[in-house]
C-alpha cells in the first residue's frame, strides 16, 4: 500500500512513537504494590488485567486480592453488581474460570452457583478453560477484513503452529479470531493479553511474537 497508515501512537502502538509499558499506562506508582492495595475505591487500578504469569491452583481473593475485592463491593448499591469485575479478578489470578472458581465467587457474593455460571458463560472474555500464557485475538471483522485480517490470522496460526483456539505445544500461545476491537481505522488490530497491537500485517507477526517472549507482556 503506497500511503501506508501510520501506527496509532499510544500504549497500543507497539511500533509507534511511544512504547509504553503497562506500568506507564496505569501510572508507575499504580503498578506493583499500589494497584494491589487498591488505591482509591473509584480508581480502575484495582481492576483486573490479563497477565501471562498465573496459576490455576492459586488461592483466590487472598492478601492484596482480598482488598481489591472489598474495594469493588463498595462501588455498587448491590453486591451482585460486583460480579463481572470479581470474575475478572479471579481470572487474573488463575488464567481461566474453572467451575470451582465460579463456585467460590458465588459463595462470596451470595449468589446461586448456577446463576454465576449462567452469567460467566454469557461473556466472551471469561476463559472457560485454560489458554496459553498469551491469548492472541485477531480481529477479522469487516474493517480489518477489508485490509487483510484473514492473512494476519493465518500468519499467527502458522508462526505458532496451532489451529484456532488450540494452545501451542510450549503453552505460550492460543490464537483465536475476535470480533471488532474498536480500532478499525488501524487495521489489522490484534489484542494480545491486555495490549492492542495495531496496523499489524502478516510480516509483523514474527517480530511481535519474539517481542512478547522477550518482554513477557
Amino acid at each position, binding site marked *: *500500500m*503506497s*500511503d501506508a*497508515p*501510520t*501506527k496509532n*501512537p*499510544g500504549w*497500543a502502538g507497539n511500533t509507534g512513537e511511544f512504547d509504553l509499558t503497562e506500568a506507564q*499506562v*496505569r501510572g508507575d506508582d*499504580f503498578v506493583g504494590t499500589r494497584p494491589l492495595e487498591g*488505591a*482509591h475505591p*473509584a*480508581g*480502575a*487500578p484495582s*481492576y*483486573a488485567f*490479563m497477565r501471562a504469569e498465573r496459576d490455576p491452583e492459586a488461592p483466590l481473593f487472598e492478601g492484596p486480592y482480598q482488598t481489591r475485592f472489598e474495594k469493588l463491593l463498595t*462501588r*455498587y*448499591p*448491590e453486591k*451482585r*453488581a*460486583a*460480579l*463481572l*469485575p470479581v*470474575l*475478572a479478578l479471579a481470572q487474573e489470578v488463575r488464567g481461566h474460570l474453572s467451575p470451582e472458581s465460579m463456585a467460590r465467587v458465588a459463595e462470596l457474593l451470595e449468589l446461586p452457583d448456577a446463576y454465576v455460571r449462567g*452469567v460467566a458463560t*454469557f*461473556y*466472551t*472474555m*471469561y476463559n472457560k478453560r485454560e489458554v496459553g500464557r498469551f491469548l492472541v485475538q485477531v480481529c*477479522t*471483522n*469487516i*474493517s480489518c*477484513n*477489508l*485490509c*487483510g485480517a484473514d492473512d494476519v490470522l493465518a500468519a499467527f496460526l502458522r508462526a505458532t503452529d496451532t489451529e484456532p483456539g488450540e494452545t501451542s505445544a510450549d503453552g505460550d500461545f492460543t490464537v483465536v479470531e475476535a*470480533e*471488532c*476491537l*474498536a*480500532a*478499525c*481505522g*488501524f*487495521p489489522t488490530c490484534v*489484542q494480545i493479553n*491486555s*495490549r*492492542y497491537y495495531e496496523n499489524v500485517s502478516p510480516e509483523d507477526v514474527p517480530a511481535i511474537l519474539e517481542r512478547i517472549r522477550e518482554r513477557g507482556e
Partner: protein
Amino acid sequence: MAYPYTSEHEVRVLSEHFGDPTARTLEGARAKGRYETLRKAFEMDRDDVIEVVKASGLRGRGGAGFPTGVKWSFMPKDDGKPHYLLCNADESEPGTFKDRELIRWDPHQLIEGCLIAAYAIRAQHVYIYCRGEFFEASAILGRAVEEAYEAGLIGRDILGSGVEIDLTVHIGAGAYICGEETGLMNSLEGRRGQPRVKPPFPAAVGAFGKPTTINNVETLAAVPHIVEHGAEWYRQWGTEKSPGTKLFCVSGHVKRPGNYELPLGFPLQTLIDEVCGGIRDGNALKAVIPGGSSVPIMNAEEVAACSLDYEGVVACGSMLGCASVIVMDETTDIVKQVRRVAYFYAHESCGQCTPCREGTTWVTKILQRIEDGRGTEEDLDTLVEVTDQMTGTTICVLSDSVAAPVQSSITKFRDEYLALIRRGERVGAA
C-alpha cells in the same frame, strides 16, 4: 501532520488533544481549561443546563441520534429517589473507533461532561461502562478519575458547591449486546447483558430499578463545550436538524483512515477524496457503509450525492448511525463482507428472541453457502424473506441490524450474488 492523520477540513472541538498525551494528567487537562465549565454549570439552575443542551440541538452519538436535552428532560424531578447517569463506552459496532480515542486522549473532558450531565439530571452516581477489551483506555480513565477525586472534583461537595456526585468506571466482559442501553443496565447489575422490554423506559425504571439516563461517550464529551460557549456557538456548525461537529471514523480502503472531526452535513465524497486522500492504489470506489455495520450499504452513485447529517444519509438510502464510514473499493467481495457481518450478529445475538437467534444463524449459513458457490437464486428470495421476518419483531434492534446490510446488498449488488450463484465466480478478492 499529527495524530495519525488530520485534515484542514476538520473542526477539532472534541478531538483537539488527540495525539497529545499531556491532556491525560489532571494538571495538563486543567492547563487546557478542563473543569472550568463545571464550576459555571454548578452555578446554573439544573433545568437551565438542560435547556442549553436542548437548544444546541445536540443529538445522541451512540447511533440513534435522539436529542440529548430532550432525553434529559424525561428524568423525574424531586422524586426523592437516587438517579443514575450511565455513560456508554461499550463501543463495539464494527467500524466504530472514536470513544476509545476520546477516553484515552482526553479522559478529563469526558469526566467533566459526565459531571455536568449528572448535575442536570439530578444523578448522584455516574457509571462509565467500558467494554472489557479497553484495558488501556479504562486504566487511563481510572487514573484520571482517581486524580479528580483527590482534587475534589468528584465526590462530596465538588468545588465547594455542595453538589455530591460519585463516578465509577465499570468494566464489561466482552459482549456487543451490552452496548444496547437496557442490556448495559443488566450487565452493570451483574446479570447477563440481555436487553429489557420497553416500556418501562430507563428514565422511569433504569439501572438498579431507579430513574436512569444513558448517553454515549461522544455525546457527553460535547456537553462541556456547549455549556461553556452556548447553543448558538454550537449551531455555527452542521445543519438545522443536525447541528454541531461529529467524529467520523473512516476505515477500509482509503489512503488515510482514522478519526476526523467534521461539521455535520459534510459531503461524503469529499471526506473520502480529500480528507482521507482518496481510495488506495488509485482504485475505484465500489461501496460505503456510512454508519457502522448495521446500516444499509450505499453504492458509488449514492455516495456522490450524500451529505453526512442524519437526514442527508437517510435521503441517500442509509443511516448515519455512529458515523463509522467503511469504504470499499472495486476489489471488495461484497458477499464475503456481508457474510462476515452477518456472522458477527449471529455470534452476538443474546438469544432471547427467536427471530433473532434463529434468523441470524440461518442468514449466515445461507450467505456462506452462496459464498462457497453452492447457492441458488431462490436463496436470495429466502434471505429477503427471513430478514423481513427479523425486522420489527424483537426486543432490541440487533435483529433489524442484519436485515439492513443483507437486503441493501442484495438490491444494490445483486450481480455479485448472481455471479457467485451462476458461475461460482467471486467478483473481488478482498
